[in-house]
């Protein structure tokens, strides 16, 4: 495994109390593999990613337990200076909104080149040439002229390409993309996603794709991990999950995708709201919203059950995964 997250716990200590954002997440990704992490806002998918990258705001955030094994070593045990050298060089992150995530007052070429100046000790001139190369790599037209432009002078799709170029700069082994296409037009979304998938194949990188868009996932992901209230509730190869979900929450998510053959009908929605992270319900966190909930769900927290014994592994955190899969 390239990256393995084990039993990760993250809390945020605020004036109003402790918000438990991540409560024992396990997932892993191999070189060349794409793991999609799916979940509503507040499910802990971004916080997990930030903990892996080491860019959590500490305080108020705090990692209270677990391991992040990357190429065999536990990143959480590294000193900050060693950790910094991993960031950007060996694992990189692509953020959602490229306009606000790029520095508005620096030319994009400087921001790209900075990676080479800081991590590789290159001269500014060589770094500039590298920046042009990268921009061409992500197919930005007239890269040579545009390298001196500022982020606001690019279109949304081009800006996201620059973000991708920045993440790719030092050919990291792992890329974490946090909703990389959410802020883009639908037509551009596909282009950016295709580019990302293509580059991933080319460099054989591991990719963690954080999203709440089920449409994006189906095309590019190998595995899916569904998160709810800071836990993984289901994890499975992508085709299995679309065929037969093994968790009522996943089922609800899939049913709430609008479909063309249901024109005129009311859209399905999972009733209720995601739980307040300061007061996560006891037992299974999803039970207040679950159509299949029984008494045991209110008291006993379900473990991650092995749904099928063989590889590739499939897991579900539902006491009634069998019933879920059968109907």
């Amino acid at each position, binding site marked *: 495994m390239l990256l393995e997250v084990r039993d990760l716990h993250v809390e945020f200590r605020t004036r109003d109390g402790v918000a438990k954002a991540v409560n024992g997440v396990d997932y892993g990704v191999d070189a060349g593999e794409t793991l999609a992490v799916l979940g509503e806002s507040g499910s802990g998918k971004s916080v997990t990613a930030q903990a892996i990258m080491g860019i959590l705001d500490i305080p108020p955030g705090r990692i209270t337990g677990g391991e992040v094994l990357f190429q065999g070593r536990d990143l959480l045990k590294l000193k900050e200076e060693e950790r910094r*050298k*991993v*960031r950007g060089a060996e694992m990189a992150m692509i953020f959602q909104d490229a306009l*606000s995530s790029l*520095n*508005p007052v*620096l030319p994009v070429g400087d921001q790209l080149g900075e*990676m080479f100046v800081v991590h590789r000790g290159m001269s500014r001139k060589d770094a500039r040439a590298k920046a042009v190369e990268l921009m061409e790599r992500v197919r930005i037209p007239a890269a040579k002229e545009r390298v001196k432009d500022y982020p606001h002078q690019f279109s949304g799709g081009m800006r996201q390409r620059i973000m991708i170029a920045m993440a790719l700069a030092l050919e990291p082994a792992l890329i974490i993309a946090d909703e990389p296409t959410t802020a883009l037009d639908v037509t551009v979304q596909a282009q950016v996603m295709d580019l990302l998938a293509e580059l991933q194949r080319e460099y054989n990188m591991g990719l963690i794709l954080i999203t709440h868009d089920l449409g994006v996932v189906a095309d590019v992901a190998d595995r899916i991990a569904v998160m709810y209230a800071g836990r993984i509730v289901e994890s499975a190869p992508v085709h299995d999950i679309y065929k037969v979900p093994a968790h009522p929450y996943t089922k609800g998510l899939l049913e709430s995708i609008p479909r063309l053959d249901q024109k005129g009908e009311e859209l399905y929605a999972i009733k209720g709201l995601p739980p307040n992270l300061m007061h996560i319900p006891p037992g299974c966190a999803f039970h207040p919203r679950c159509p299949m909930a029984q008494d045991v769900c209110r008291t006993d927290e379900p473990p991650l059950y092995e749904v099928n014994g063989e590889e590739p592994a499939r897991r579900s955190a539902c006491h009634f995964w069998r019933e879920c899969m059968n109907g």
Partner: protein
Amino acid sequence: MGRYVVRRLLQMIPVFIGATLLIFLMVNVMGDPIAGLCGERQCDPATAAQLKKEFGLDKPVWQQYLTYMGNVFTGDFGTAFNGQKVTELMSTAFPVTIRLTIVAILFEIVIGITLGVVTGLRRGRPVDTSVLLFTLVVISVPTFVTGLLLQLLLGVEWGWIKPSVSTDATFGELIVPGLVLASVSLAYVTRLTRTSIAENRRSDYVRTAIAKGLPRQRVIVRHLLRNSLISVVTFIGTDIGALMGGAIVTERIFNIHGVGYQLYQGILRQNTQTVVGFVTVLVLVFLVANLLVDLLYAVLDPRIRYA
């Protein structure tokens, strides 16, 4: 850009005329300038009339203004009643005040921004709270109190500095007066920088910079500070104009013969030509400083384009 500058320069003309006319009228309302010339006793009516004629004070105000402005544009700011040319007064006063302003601005930049960055990064911690409290005190206490207090302590009690500045007014002598002059603005610069830093620290591009694996110092200086200073630079720029003209109290306390001192003397002695002349130049300085700030703004923030 070029067209923008031209337009701004053209806009300055009405502002300049309005401001000078206003000050001209105000000085005229102050009272009879001749009365002050004869000291304590009443002027002899014949002498007064003759003096009035000599200085053109018998003509209507608008005519006086036109004559004056006509002269100003040929570089003649008139003669003070003691016979000294106003331009001569300026050539001694302005260099002194410019030096004082430089010292004050340096204090604002170095101390103000440093404190702002330190507190902005440690919001809510003891350092932050104490500095914040201190700036509040500095802002609330009038300059003449801080000035006199420092003069008394450093100059008279402990003898670290000379309580009054010599006519040379070297940079060394101007350190303490410069600090006094800067104090209130310095407190504002600190608060402005602090707010700006604290706000931008949580911004997405700073998170990106950290995610890129940049060293902390580079994240702060190149990404965080650069963005946070835009508003601060604007404040400091406009402050240049204010400091040049607003040094009256500080220059009085430390006996610095700069612009503030000359203005004070001019008003006290009802010396129309001096007051109007100095204020005219200050209006110009203020206008130019503002234009430069606006242009600098576009340099610092490429999203701003002037057309």
